[in-house]
């Protein structure tokens, strides 16, 4: 089952305009410098540049007469800039890209009209929003009287929800990203996928018909879907038999090329699936997911902690271990001091002392913290643990922490019903809520917030959640009485993720859109996943 848009889903505005604009800007910049140019492009820049201007366009621009001039171009494209700055901004928690986001929003509003409804949450979201408003005021008049093409805009700061970004992804596109790393919408499939000795760069978008049908699917359905597809394809090939010459001619000239193309894509994605399966079973993926779900639901914390410890002791993967530690910390509102110390010690022993700095980074970002004394009954617990064996102490801790003040995530999770109550198996083939992107275990917090606010058209009634998110000062709504907005445009929603979004979140919102007749447009400073998040925090010995 793929996700076709509902027949009544609103049409998207013409976004190819943005691409043309960026390309024209690049060409303009290059033409500012007369003469022939040798262009040195950093490898990291190639992918984003390729999305707006391919080599043939650049060649045309660069034709000139005088040799021996070398220029490094200073790119002014938001996308490029974001790619370059992502890492740094994560590290310092500084907001260097906020201005860029504000300018991007300003550009969008000049192209597609004003946004009648604005919502946002998080510190960066508010800062970007205010800067954007300033820009609009400075140049007012330009958007006045324009008919809005996009009815809602939602700005969401990544800080608000790190949990979702830290989870293992299980929808196809997310898995491909986790496994192979999607860069600017394209992915390098290695020889293990292409089943020849060359790597292949594949553009993953709606043009790829096979991919488009499975990108939002839970991985467990993908294999079945692909094999069904393969059978259909075979059947179409088989139609050749018994064709007369004319039909055959028709078949070859009209259908064969499409079939061959589909065939190629199909075998690529089957290869990717195999490769993913191999990797995921090797690392005891099921165990890992089980632990994650336990952390999200908040049961068997002691067991999960031991699992993480074992994970570290066995040197399974520095990034994965770190991710689990962070997930534990956020869901539990910080680690209890004993675990905080021992997990860090274990980690340093396994992966080297430079990670002392990694922990410092994580603490600053609020991803890995120690519970403040009084948060739990640590003192009592440590006394008790002296009297009884380790195992018993663990059980007692669990009991105590259930009595103690619940962490914010738990409270939010309960308020927003993030852990769906499941009677029997969650049918992943027929998802009933956004939780399907995490195998039915958890509704992404970020997406739930967006859903709730859109439903209420404000933050009304969500005060408690906002307070728990520590965002009381950073949640805002701005509605203009805009009669001009068509009902069509009011079902278009631009979601802006500041600090990155994951493919799982995109899939979840697409599902929501299908259920409610919305259509979501995504703008993000980066597509992220747990590994990228952790790598940005990790100290690397040069």
């Amino acid at each position, binding site marked *: 089952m793929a996700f076709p848009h509902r027949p009544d889903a609103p049409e998207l505005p013409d976004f190819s305009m943005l691409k043309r604009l960026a390309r024209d800007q690049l060409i303009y910049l290059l033409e500012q410098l007369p003469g022939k140019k040798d262009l040195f492009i950093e490898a990291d820049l190639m992918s984003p540049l390729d999305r707006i201007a391919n080599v043939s366009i650049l060649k045309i621009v660069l034709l000139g007469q005088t040799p021996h001039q070398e220029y490094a171009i200073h790119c002014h494209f938001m996308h490029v800039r974001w790619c370059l700055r992502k890492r740094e901004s994560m590290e310092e928690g500084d*907001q260097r890209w*906020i201005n860029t986001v504000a300018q991007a929003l300003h550009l969008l509003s000049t192209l597609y009209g004003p946004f009648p409804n604005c919502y946002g949450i998080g510190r960066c979201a508010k800062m970007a929003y205010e800067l954007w408003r300033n820009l609009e005021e400075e140049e007012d008049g330009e958007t006045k009287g324009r008919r809005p093409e996009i009815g809602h805009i939602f700005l969401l700061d990544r800080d608000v929800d790190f949990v979702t970004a830290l989870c293992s992804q299980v929808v196809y596109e997310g898995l491909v990203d986790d496994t192979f790393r999607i860069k600017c919408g394209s992915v390098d499939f290695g020889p293990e996928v292409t089943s020849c000795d060359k790597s292949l760069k594949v553009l993953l978008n709606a043009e790829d018909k096979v991919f488009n049908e499975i990108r939002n699917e839970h991985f467990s359905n993908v294999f079945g879907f692909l094999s069904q597809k393969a059978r259909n394809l075979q059947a179409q090939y088989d139609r050749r038999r018994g064709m007369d010459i004319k039909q055959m001619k028709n078949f070859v000239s009209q259908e064969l090329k499409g079939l061959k193309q589909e065939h190629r894509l199909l075998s690529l994605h089957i290869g990717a699936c195999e490769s993913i399966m191999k990797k995921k079973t090797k690392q005891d993926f099921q165990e890992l997911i089980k632990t994650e779900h336990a952390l999200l639901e908040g049961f068997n914390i002691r067991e999960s902690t031991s699992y993480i410890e074992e994970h570290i002791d066995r040197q399974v993967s520095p990034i994965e271990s770190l991710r689990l530690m962070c997930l534990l910390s956020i869901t539990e509102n910080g680690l209890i001091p004993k675990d905080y110390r021992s997990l860090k010690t274990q980690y340093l022993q396994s992966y080297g002392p*430079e990670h002392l700095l990694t922990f410092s980074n994580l603490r600053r970002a609020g991803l890995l913290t120690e519970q403040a004394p009084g948060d739990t009954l640590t003192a009592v617990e440590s006394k008790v643990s002296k009297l009884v064996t380790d195992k018993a102490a663990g059980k007692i801790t669990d009991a105590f922490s259930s009595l103690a003040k619940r962490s914010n995530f738990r409270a939010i999770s309960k308020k927003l019903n993030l852990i769906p109550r499941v009677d029997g198996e969650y049918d992943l083939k027929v998802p009933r809520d956004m939780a399907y992107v995490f195998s039915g275990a958890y509704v992404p917090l970020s997406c739930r917030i967006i859903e709730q606010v859109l439903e209420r058209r404000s933050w009304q009634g969500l005060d408690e959640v906002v307070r728990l998110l520590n965002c009381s000062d950073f949640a805002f709504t701005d509605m203009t009485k805009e009669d001009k907005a068509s009902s069509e445009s009011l079902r278009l929603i631009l979601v802006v993720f500041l600090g990155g979004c994951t493919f799982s979140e995109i899939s979840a919102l697409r599902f929501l859109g299908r259920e409610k007749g919305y259509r979501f447009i995504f703008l993000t400073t980066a597509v992220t996943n747990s590994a990228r998040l952790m790598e940005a925090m990790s100290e690397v010995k040069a």
Partner: protein
Amino acid sequence: MPLASLLVSTSDGPWGSGLDRVSSSEDSLRNLSPLQWKSGPVVSLGWSAEEELLCVQEDGAVLVYGLHGDFRRHFSMGNEVLQNRVLDARIFHTEFGSGVAILTGAHRFTLSANVGDLKLRRMPEVPGLQSAPSCWTALCQDRVAHILLAVGPDLYLLDHAACSAVTPPGLAPGVSSFLQMAVSFTYRHLALFTDTGYIWMGTASLKEKLCEFNCNIRAPPKQMVWCSRPRSKERAVVVAWERRLMVVGDAPESIQFVLDEDSYLVPELDGVRIFSHSTHEFLHEVPAASEEIFKIASMAPGALLLEAQKEYEKESQKADEYLREIQELGQLTQAVQQCIEAAGHEHQPDMQKSLLRAASFGKCFLDRFPPDSFVHMCQDLRVLNAVRDYHIGIPLTYSQYKQLTIQVLLDRLVLRRLYPLAIQICEYLRLPEVQGVSRILAHWACYKVQQKDVSDEDVARAINQKLGDTPGVSYSDIAARAYGCGRTELAIKLLEYEPRSGEQVPLLLKMKRSKLALSKAIESGDTDLVFTVLLHLKNELNRGDFFMTLRNQPMALSLYRQFCKHQELETLKDLYNQDDNHQELGSFHIRASYAAEERIEGRVAALQTAADAFYKAKNEFAAKATEDQMRLLRLQRRLEDELGGQFLDLSLHDTVTTLILGGHNKRAEQLARDFRIPDKRLWWLKLTALADLEDWEELEKFSKSKKSPIGYLPFVEICMKQHNKYEAKKYASRVGPEQKVKALLLVGDVAQAADVAIEHRNEAELSLVLSHCTGATDGATADKIQRARAQAQKK
């Protein structure tokens, strides 16, 4: 348009000027003259494309004056000229701007293709040139400036690399010298006047002859210029002697005029202007529409319509007759169009009016005549008449105006400080504010700030009153101008009106108000701008002040830290020191211990400093961890010395593993004890290492050393991973009951796994085993499980 004249020589810009402006030009001349006397004789005068007056002096200095006689700047055409003097100079126009070419006393040429971006180019020598060339000119071809010169019967083309002799194709024989040469406005055509009274006309590339003419006058002409003929596209050259003017072209006959006074010719886009002391004439091809209408006894529709309208005003019925005549031929539309077009080419408002009236009259009898052309012509003529007024003195022709565009015309008005007229034109034409009124107001403001006799407050207030919040006005530009005039205080006052804080920053920096600039940059939210200011401040202030400034600006501080992390690590340390940020200092030294230091002593010392800092920061965990690392580092060093191999920089875990892999089990145990490695980790570690070595004997011994803290399933798993089923089975029997089934399945003993699962009566285990039952071999087992299940359900 402006005209400058000097005692003997006269020169002019690309556009001729109204005679009526001469008097005002003379005003500026009067200002200029004393300067010239001081600076030495002037060889040539000319206007740049930006309407600046360029005066080329004999000593090679070029003085640049503004339109109002204000001295702007000066530059030199090279040191060589000082000695040799300038014999002759030309000012020419290229697509890059305006250029100057000079001929020195040593008969060498030097040119600059753009005086705005001065690059002198000394042209190569002309071989055997002993005296000045009889005539020469600057040529522009393929975006490169050349010099064409005539020496006796020879022509030479100079480019920056070489001097080449050229011959015009089809030149009549008997030429012993060229007296004049003229290049067309577009540099496409060239005309040569020889001492035989013969005129050769061809392309400037000298590849093609267009036509020739013999005027039989051997006296050297005073001037020769091309006359563009936009309508017929034919070529014509105007040659002037003292009292005679001759127009020649591709025809056997020439047209001759008598000149009453000394005159000067200026070639223009659509004709030639002829200036004399008392007159200003424009020689041009008669436009088609005008010819049709005003030709004697013309029966063209436009002529008839004009006639009809005149009769109509006289209330004569002839009007109807004329009109009928046009209508019968179905030419009324054409007639109206002709009248509109002809009106555009008229200079007298009366004549313009009567032609437009005729057009309007004709329009009444047409059903659907689009009004645009009529309306636009009325507007254009109104603007043209306004600027042609002798107070303004810009006598543009209609075609010139169209070529120039309204924007450029406005610029020229602004340059002449004719702000009110410019604004009236903008308002009349309803130009958008940003392009029109506000732009002109901004220019006015820039002029206003130069009035030094008015106080800062008054100027600022006056400007703000006029400009208000007009969109498109940049207060920072005006402020920049004020600063340029040395009025810093006024500039700061004006900046306060600037709504975009980002725009204020560059100027504030320039005015050395860096701290203010910093807060404005932060206000703007543009981090690039903040960086710019920071780097500026860093150079400007001493270190202490700079840090103090940062302290009050958290955002700037955080950005600067970021910068230091990549560029200046030492500064980063100082910053942390200043803030007593011991935690970050500790981190800094940790990084130094592996990134900056190489020797082991240095590394340990860095770690010691880090540990001390962590203690100060009350981060005991980090301090202890650092001390452990110091111990480990020393130990690794010793291991390397004693055992050889690579130990430095391994983690504790990897150090122990390396020891085991190297067979140093005792050392490994010692290390584990010293660093209090937990039992669980040690077991995992040993298990993995021994399996890697495939030392099954040692592994078995190890497994029996005491009860495994990690159970025995990992032993099974790791043996299977190494494909050693035999060893795996040994451990499977020792796996505890909870994981027994899993272990048995791993070693492939499905039957026994089934037995255990049935014994446990565990549903999950049963299904797990069942899922491992494959085909025929395990058929019996599967049945057994099914039976057990059924039995369980019965109970």
